[in-house]
């Protein structure tokens, strides 16, 4: 839940952080810079995240994430899996993608005939449905059966809309 948006201006460069009502850190893009900022003057602006205006636009430019609840969920950049190709001997991997906002997500896997062979549902607050970069743990064994060597396509969807897709090679 976003309730606060902090924008820090250090030496003319702008950084942002999101926090909830209790000040719990959710996401930032300045931590490393803050450590190296030394004694330089820092401007700190704290605003409710529900406000609209240029600071929200600044936040969206900085992070690519939307604070507008009416904006449709989308994936920023590529949807990719690692490792690719994935081997049965090291079958732990991840599917990585960046969401502009939290959302319930579905991931589908299709075999080489174009037939759906796997489906998982991820809630908005779980890994895979959170705003920002998501690393969804993926095991070949999740599919329930060993797959033959080949290429499989996976699709990330929300509310029936395709957000992203890619291909995954599987070797035995």
């Amino acid at each position, binding site marked *: 839940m976003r309730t606060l948006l902090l924008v820090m201006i250090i030496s003319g460069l702008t950084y942002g952080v999101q926090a909830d009502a209790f000040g719990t850190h959710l996401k930032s893009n300045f931590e490393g810079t803050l450590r190296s900022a030394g004694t330089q003057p820092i401007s700190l602006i704290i605003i409710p995240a529900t406000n609209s205006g240029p600071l929200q636009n600044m936040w969206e430019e900085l992070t690519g994430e939307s604070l507008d609840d009416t904006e449709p969920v989308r994936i920023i950049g590529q949807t990719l899996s690692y490792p690719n190709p994935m081997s049965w001997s090291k079958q732990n991997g991840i599917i990585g993608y960046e969401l502009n906002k939290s959302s319930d997500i579905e991931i589908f896997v299709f075999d080489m005939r174009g037939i759906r062979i796997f489906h998982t549902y991820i809630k908005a607050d779980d890994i895979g449905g959170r705003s920002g970069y998501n690393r969804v743990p993926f095991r070949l064994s999740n599919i329930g059966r060993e797959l033959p060597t*080949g290429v499989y396509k996976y699709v990330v969807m929300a509310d029936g809309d395709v957000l992203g897709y890619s291909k995954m090679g599987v070797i035995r």
Partner: protein
Amino acid sequence: MGKVIVFFVLILSTSLLAVDYFMPTTMGNSAYAKGVGVIGFENSAVSVLENPAKLSDIREYSLSGFTTTVMDDFAYRNLAFAKRLGPHWAVGVGYAELGVDGIPHTDLVWDNFDDEFTVIELSNYAYRNYVVKAAFQYLHASKVSIGSALSYYRTSLWTTHGNGINVDAALQYRSISGLTEVSVVATNVIPNLVVTYDNGAKETLPMRTSLGVKRQVRSFDVYWQLMSPTLSESLYLWSFGVEYQCPKVPLRVLGTRYQFDVFDDVRVAYATGLQLDLHGLKVSYSFEKSDYPLTDNNHYFSVSFGQ
């Protein structure tokens, strides 16, 4: 007694660990066969790939080709040629391929923004899976034909390559009236011949067996097929198809309701299509609904020519 138990444990383990190789012919070999939902009744060179006994219908020669692209990325193609050598003999060669390009090769990089790893694309690679078949057909009696094909399978994915060979066997029977045909086809009949990869992995070449019947009723050809897609599962798939010869035009309308397997699950699909016959040049098209959310339908195209 102990030896018996060990034997059965080994047999069970083998069947549990066995993974069937994905053959590029699994998706179908012609728009006509997709349109009627059965294999083994095509009277062109594509019989090399699916029912060598049916080469009995080749009078002089035949050339055929097929293409479809699934999920915008998975390109299936085949090409086959068959020639009659005498009243009892015909031979043919066929090539079928599945190719996929642009598969991302990825790595992890540390993201200072999130203090975690992010997946990035380093390059991309291709997947190729093909089979080459050499087939012959022998007309044993005027109504019974037998055929066989030697298959060479090869797969390459990233730096891994796999190879295997096996044999198909088929029998075709046509009734004296010519109105009924029966087809029995078994692919990869030698169970010990598998696909072996250069990393040591092995995959079973699936022994797919099918029994099909075609019956002509006035302007209709009615098809029925029972298929066991693999020996490692006790699955039986039923197909029912109809072909209608339009009056006064060389056009046939195709339709089918067929079953297919997804692991040990059986699902149902429908397909429909057309075949235009222009003095030996047959052009076929069929389509079916796609499971993939970004494409509404899968489209199949094939062409054959010969006498």
